[in-house]
């Protein structure tokens, strides 16, 4: 989270305080920072449980693994992404976002960031057995996050021009719901594969 704030507060200093430029790059900066900071925390999602064997015990119990994975993902979102969303008004101020832009940004963040956690967890499940999976994780995930990034920033851009952006939101929402339905099973499967 500190990383997120640092990145965003450095941008106005580096680019200059011109409101027009900041408004232009603002949504993109916030989204890129959100994606990168979610990657930072993501790596630890299953690692401790994998290393101390809790994950084995979980798999050998009757507890449903997809449900447990979903709870893990929810915990990740609540601890490492929700604080960012709570702080986002302040950061929007840094980047001179006007009010309609901020509301659009908030909506895309609320709909889009759970997607980061859900999809990210699949890749974490796959790389948990590797010792230095961090770089691989980023390489696996960043291409997958690009569509989300495009739709989210384009929604905010539309908002800045006083246009409708419900189409972009609808697409992000559809991606979120699809991943909410399928990701827990994919995560569980990835974790089982990683036991080998």
């Amino acid at each position, binding site marked *: 989270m500190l990383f997120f704030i640092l990145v965003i507060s450095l941008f106005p200093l580096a680019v200059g305080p011109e409101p027009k430029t900041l408004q232009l790059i603002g949504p993109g900066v916030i989204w890129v920072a959100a994606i990168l900071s979610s990657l930072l925390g993501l790596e630890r999602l299953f690692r401790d449980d994998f290393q*101390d064997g809790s994950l084995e015990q979980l798999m050998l119990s009757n507890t449903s693994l997809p449900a447990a994975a979903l709870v893990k993902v929810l915990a990740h979102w609540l601890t490492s992404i929700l604080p960012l969303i709570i702080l986002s008004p302040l950061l929007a101020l840094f980047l001179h976002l006007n009010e309609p832009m901020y509301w659009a940004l908030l909506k895309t963040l609320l709909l889009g960031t759970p997607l980061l956690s859900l999809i990210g967890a699949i890749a974490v499940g796959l790389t948990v057995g590797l010792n230095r999976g961090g770089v691989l994780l980023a390489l696996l995930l960043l291409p997958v996050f690009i569509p989300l990034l495009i739709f989210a920033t384009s929604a905010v851009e539309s908002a800045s021009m006083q246009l409708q952006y419900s189409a972009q939101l609808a697409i992000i929402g559809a991606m979120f719901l699809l991943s909410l339905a399928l990701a827990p099973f994919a995560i569980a499967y990835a974790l089982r594969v990683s036991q080998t």
Partner: protein
Amino acid sequence: MAVISVINLSVVKTDRLLFEHLNFAVEQGGLLYVKGQNGAGKTSLLRVLAGLVNADSGKVYFSQQNIKDCRDDYHQHLVYFGHKLGINLTLSAVENLQYWCKQHQVVISVDRIFNTLAQLNLVGLEDIPVANLSAGQQRRVALARFWFKQNAKLWILDEPFTALDNQGIELISKQITQFLIGGGAVVITSHQALRLDYPTDELTLEYRI
């Protein structure tokens, strides 16, 4: 009736054949002692038996049912103790065990947990983070599971005696014997000779290159 039986099991790990065409069965009250050098595939065998890893060929049956088809039923009656303890170092002993019991749908009172920990010589250490305990004490916390799962039919134990002192080994041996007398089946690996007063079947895995 065989609690667990294995037919034509072969496992390959990192391009090395660990064992092939392995067949055995463990009856109720049976104790199978898996022997072998380091790297012979003991742990891999136990992980396959527990259903953590799939075998390259062959099948594992629990009460005549393929474990892939009765995963939930199988795991309800299984206690697996592996190299990794499955203990979270930041939680206390009691929290760890409560968590494990909940996970495995074992209903148990906190008093029982405290009593068991006392039996394992962990009096006064129940509430501090497990990270502050010694290696042997951490293992004792994990081994307390042997006292909890009453409906278990099979224990799969991978080196349960490592890092334990003599008194600990005796205590665990006694608990294993009791479980066997009660009709449970045990598959165990150990580099120390088993000090169990119980008829033992042995399975020796050869190290292959």
